[in-house]
């Protein structure tokens, strides 16, 4: 079948062109290193230091004892350095001196009021210059109160008390030191891989131009090979070349730079394959429309970096709706959602848009190719 002949020929010619192959491979790797190192501060996650608090519990009831136990949990201790004080006066003094951020105070009637379903807060005294540490204290106290309310509600419905172990709110928050956010190297590994994929469009335009224009193109045109076999064969050859490069970039980013690619490699491959297919189609269409290899390559060499920039591939940007015009952004969004547990629906939408664009481009390329000789 001529499809495979054309694909094989395209593949070995691309791979044998070592200079071009290595250039297209090295550029994203070098950019991952440069951008991943130079912009690492932009992506740095500030670790939360411990917040010092004074704690006074003057209540002997069960609810306040539960709160004391709550403060003693490992996850809370990572965030709060609790110092038990013996009097309200001593606690306030520590706050005023700045030795602690806040004083958590439970008055003697607290448990009784809660049991009777009365509104009774845990009181928090804070200094005026406590910055985000005050927020940390307030959030932790709120977490307990929400948990306690839940326990009470469950109990009221006739269930057994589930106890304090159900309080896992703090553990789930991504603001912990080990939070799941990309480092610069993780971010650029993805965006530069996408850039590498998009450069498949230039391969495609160069190959299509050679096969469709000039003397070699004429010679192929008069052979019995059909248009669809010629286009599909070339696209397949270019796709394999592109995927070969992408695999190398992926492995280097993963094994050498230890970039985070998540655990679902199959999904990542699916997204990258889709984008590669789209890039190859776009390259083919540009080559067929321009009827000039140099012009086609020039257009793509300008457009691809612009698309990468709009998508925040070089520097993180927020261009809102404009970003959706970039195919890079669609693929990036799908990949980041996959790695960092984002919206599966958004990933599916992005992939659908990529395939819709690809279908339009292929149909246009097919019709344009039929009109190229008049």
């Amino acid at each position, binding site marked *: 079948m*001529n499809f495979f*002949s054309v694909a094989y*020929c395209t593949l*070995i*010619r691309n791979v*044998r*062109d070592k200079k071009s192959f290595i250039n297209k491979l090295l550029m994203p790797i070098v950019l991952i290193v440069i951008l991943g190192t130079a912009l690492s501060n932009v992506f740095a996650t500030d670790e939360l230091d411990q917040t010092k608090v004074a704690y006074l519990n003057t209540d002997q009831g069960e609810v306040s004892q539960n709160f004391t136990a709550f403060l003693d949990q490992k996850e809370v201790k990572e965030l709060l350095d609790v110092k038990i004080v013996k009097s309200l006066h001593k606690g306030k003094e520590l706050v005023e001196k700045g030795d602690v951020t806040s004083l958590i105070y439970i008055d003697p009637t607290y448990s009784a009021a809660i049991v009777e379903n009365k509104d009774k807060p845990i009181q928090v005294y804070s200094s005026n210059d406590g910055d985000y540490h005050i927020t940390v204290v307030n959030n932790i106290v709120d977490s307990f109160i929400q948990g306690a309310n839940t326990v009470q509600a469950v109990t009221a419905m006739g269930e057994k008390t589930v106890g304090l172990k159900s309080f896992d709110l703090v553990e789930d928050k991504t603001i912990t030191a080990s939070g799941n956010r990309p480092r610069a190297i993780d971010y650029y590994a993805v965006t530069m891989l996408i850039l590498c994929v998009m450069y498949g469009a230039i391969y495609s335009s160069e190959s299509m131009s050679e096969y469709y224009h*000039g*003397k*070699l193109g*004429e*010679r*192929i*045109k*008069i*052979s*019995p*090979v*059909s248009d669809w076999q010629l286009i599909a064969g070339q696209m397949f050859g270019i796709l394999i070349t592109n995927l070969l490069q992408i695999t190398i970039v992926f492995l280097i980013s993963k094994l050498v730079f230890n970039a985070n690619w998540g655990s679902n490699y199959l999904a990542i491959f699916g997204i990258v394959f889709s984008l590669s297919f789209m890039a190859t189609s776009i390259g083919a269409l540009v080559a067929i429309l321009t009827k000039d290899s140099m012009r086609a390559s020039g257009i793509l060499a300008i457009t691809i970096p612009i698309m990468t920039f709009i998508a925040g591939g070089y520097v993180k940007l927020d261009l809102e709706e404009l970003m959706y015009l970039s195919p890079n952004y669609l693929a990036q969004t799908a990949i980041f959602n996959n790695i960092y547990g984002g919206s599966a629906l958004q990933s599916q939408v992005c992939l659908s848009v990529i395939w819709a664009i690809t279908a339009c481009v292929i149909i246009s390329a097919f019709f344009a190719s039929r009109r190229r*000789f*008049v």
Partner: protein
Amino acid sequence: MVVEIENLVKEFKERKAVNNVNISIKEGEIFGFLGPNGAGKTTTINALVGLTSPNSGSIRILGDSTAKHRKKVNKNIGLVPQDIAIFEDLKAKENVEFFGRLYGLRGTELKERVQAALEFTGLWDRRKEYPKKFSGGMKRRLNIACAIVHQPKLIIMDEPTVGVDPQSRNHILRSIVELNKRGSTIIYTSHYMEEVEEVCGNIAIMDNGEVIAQGTSDELKKLISSEKRMDITLKKVTQYLIDELNQIDGIKSCTVENQIMTILYEQKNDLFLSLVIETITKYNAEIIAIDVENPSLEDVFLTLTGKKLRD
């Protein structure tokens, strides 16, 4: 008939590149297309192979209309384009294999045909080398190998000897005759008349998009059979001398190139040659050599078009 072209017209904007061309080529012929650059040879060939669509007229190859059965027709055509059209980054054998596959060859048949094509063009020993290491002549031969690998019934060679060394040129000319002996019909275009005269049976002379004469070499020469040609090498030539020679009864044309005066004439009496020499002597032009020849295709072309073939 292998090729039947009827009333072929191809216009580019307002210029008629091919104007009402009619050509018939029999099976087993080597058919020559003669004409200067821009005469319409390549446009006619492009219409034959489907690289350009004619504005009107019809083309039938091996009985099939090219307008209706393009793919079927092209399976039986091997085109050797004027410009070398091979992959520089594929080895010689891979190039021939690629084109063989495009024409449907597979497996053992492909291997045998590739070897045959490379042996035929004298490149089998260089099959593992990239064409970028080849000389111009070797590239031309590889260009031919790619066109004949599928053993087409009709081979079209568009100026295949342009810019090649004498050794490759002779090899190509011998190849054309050999391919013809093996059963292929060949269309050969060139502006080298001696090549066309050497290998072609029927010849069409084109100029300004029209076929101005058609026939065998002898038939074409008979068109100007009463004329003869004389080449006189002179030490110096003046316009007065040329003007006076042109007034001699029987002289059809008198042109000068590189001190060689070419006179086409019709000898009307025995004193004609003496009269010419006397006139030249009168102008002290000093004759170095005289060569009297029967008319060539070049003379035919010159007479029919009023210009030299390489103009």
